[in-house]
């Protein structure tokens, strides 16, 4: 990509008096004009950002790519795959209810685990491709002694799909790593949602959320894993999750649920 960052498009050469506005905010201020519209370069910058966000939403989750990344990150857990009841992206986007339920023929091996991890495409499969393996590896390194269920890769999945998955696996806690709704400048944000005692019907208020895992611009893997491991310990001790477990952001970003 050769498109200059919109912050710096006018920089270089003479000092720019508009820079006082541009330096003050990440908002797209002082873009200049072509008549009553935007100059071509600014218009194309905006389109590039929107295209990246749109493509992030509509990219299919590539299971092989995630498996390879997990292996390279040193994660040795088995990897299972599940699908929600949303058969395709178009349905998924219009029917969040279907993205919260497992496809009827889903079979998961039951057991007894402290923790299950679900890697869910959500609204940005790209976030899972780029950041799930690093996050999982960093988290597992911080949880010695925890029994962890096989990893579950979930297609056309919303956060709440972790509830039936966690229940079927027999996990005390489920963490869903999900691609968040892409913003114009953040198409690859991963969100982490913790739910104690997963079962269908859990409310959003019973979850804890760590948002914007996206190094180097957002939260790094180590930092996210530190926070998540702390929440997991506290949740196990408390026997609950959600608003009762304070300190971390517990609100769901729009469209993520």
């Amino acid at each position, binding site marked *: 990509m050769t498109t200059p960052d*919109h912050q710096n498009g006018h920089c270089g050469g003479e000092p*720019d*008096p*508009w820079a*006082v*506005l*541009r330096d*003050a*905010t*990440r*908002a*797209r*201020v*002082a*873009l*200049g*004009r072509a008549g*009553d*519209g*935007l100059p071509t370069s*600014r218009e194309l910058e*905006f*389109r590039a*950002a*929107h295209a990246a*966000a*749109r493509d*992030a*939403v509509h990219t299919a989750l590539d299971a092989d790519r995630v498996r390879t990344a997990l292996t390279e990150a040193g994660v040795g857990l088995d990897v299972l795959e599940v699908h929600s009841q949303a058969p395709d992206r178009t349905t998924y*986007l*219009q*029917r*969040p*209810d279907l993205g919260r339920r497992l496809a009827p023929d889903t079979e998961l091996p039951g057991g007894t685990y402290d923790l299950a991890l679900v890697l869910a495409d959500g*609204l940005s499969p790209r976030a899972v491709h780029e950041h799930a393996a690093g996050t999982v590896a960093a988290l597992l390194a911080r949880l010695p002694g925890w029994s962890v269920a096989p990893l579950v890769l979930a297609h056309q999945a919303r956060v709440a799909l972790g509830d039936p998955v966690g229940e079927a696996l027999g996990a005390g806690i489920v963490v869903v790593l999900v691609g968040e*709704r*892409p*913003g*114009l*400048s*953040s198409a690859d944000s991963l969100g982490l949602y913790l739910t104690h005692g997963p079962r269908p019907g859990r409310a959003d208020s019973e979850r804890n959320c760590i948002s914007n895992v996206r190094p180097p611009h957002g939260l790094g893997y180590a930092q996210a894993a530190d926070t998540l491991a702390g929440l997991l310990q506290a949740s196990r001790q408390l026997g609950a999750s959600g608003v009762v477990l304070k300190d971390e952001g517990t609100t769901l970003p*729009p*469209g993520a649920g």
Partner: protein
Amino acid sequence: MTVRRTTLGGHTHEFRSLTDVLAKATPARSGDVLAGVAAESQAQRVAAQHVLADVPLATFLTEPVVGYDEDDVTRLILDTHDPAAFAPVSALTVGEFRDWLLARAAERDEAAISGLARGLTPEMAAAVSKVMRNADLVAVARRTRVVTGLRSTLGLPGRLASRLQPNHPTDDAVGVTAAILDGLLHGSGDAVIGINPATDSPAQTIALLELVDAVISRYEIPTQSCVLAHVTTTLRALEAGAPVDLVFQSVAGTQAGNRGFGVTLDLLAEARAGALELGRGTVGANVTYFETGQGSALSADAHHGVDGPVDQQTLECRAYAVARHFDPLLVNTVVGFIGPEYLYDGKQVIRAGLEDHFCGKLLGLPMGVDVCYTNHTDVDGDDTDTLTLLLGAAGCSFVIAVPGSDDVMLHYQSLSFTDVLTARSVLDLRPAPEFEAWLAMMDLLDDAGHVRELTPEAPAARALLAAARS
């Protein structure tokens, strides 16, 4: 519950209730599918429109879609209905009402259309919109006049105002100021300089109110400010003596929906009284601002009526009854923010924007639109251009604009300041008169009245940039 039937193309379609007719007659949208109330076929949709066209308007006064006893919005609608204002159309059916509106619009009889407002219920407005095409919605809205004012006058013919939305992810004072100045330099901000705060705390709200008040005072800008905090936060700011121009609140079309927003009608009345008491207006005394949007009731599981779920557009219109009770300066639907599960693509967003604008105006609201989209909706700048120009033609009171279309706090795309310039230019629309005079005084207008592009050395630019440095 009255069962209604019609035969279309040899097939008999039956609808179990008025609620069912309204839902099935609604142009296609994903939220009604999600709620399980949408028509199952195109033929069924048109059959429902046939049935709806034959329903007398007066029926909506006796067959509420949400129960009178259990819902205070229904009580508000029916208890404040004005029979005298209703009289000119009281004998008409929904279909005849559409014809009546189109005839008055063609005659440019603004008084006849605008005089109906307090005689119409939201369900009547919703019903007639469902049998109108996009151009019908534009044509009638264009001849519906709703004028409001506080320190600028909004809704006058030939005008298009804008809300300057200088949001910042951390409410940073310098960042917010930079966005305000960028907007002012583009001739935006005549409807309001309105900030969505990143955190809903009284202290933060007061800090932002004081910041915008200082900019408005320093440059003597004839506009008003608003920090779009929850009404309870604004009440705290009022108690603390903060410079509150407008009381803001998101509202929904059912009591349960408003409960989901944490508001009651009494709370809204209390806050409005507090803002009125400050007497901060110069050209008017409208001191409230409401936002709405199709799908908000469904997303709060607050979409249930006397006969199952109510369609999202009818519920949206009911939110307008809440808003109009408090004599607002501004009301806008946030048409593309809620996501593809309610409005899937550009076609649905454009249709919903025109419906909301038409219905709001018909019910007497100073209606604006946040023409916007999220990245998981199938909408782009071409769609927002189309809707914006249609709204400009429809006489929309105001639109929302952010720097470069990119709201860096709420993470969605609204219009840019240049989009407002384009709409004004293409459709020969001007800013609010007081604000236009201010732009002229600041030497921001060229001889033809267009907002000129300034060099940083221009006196107006230097004056405004000084604020960014201080």
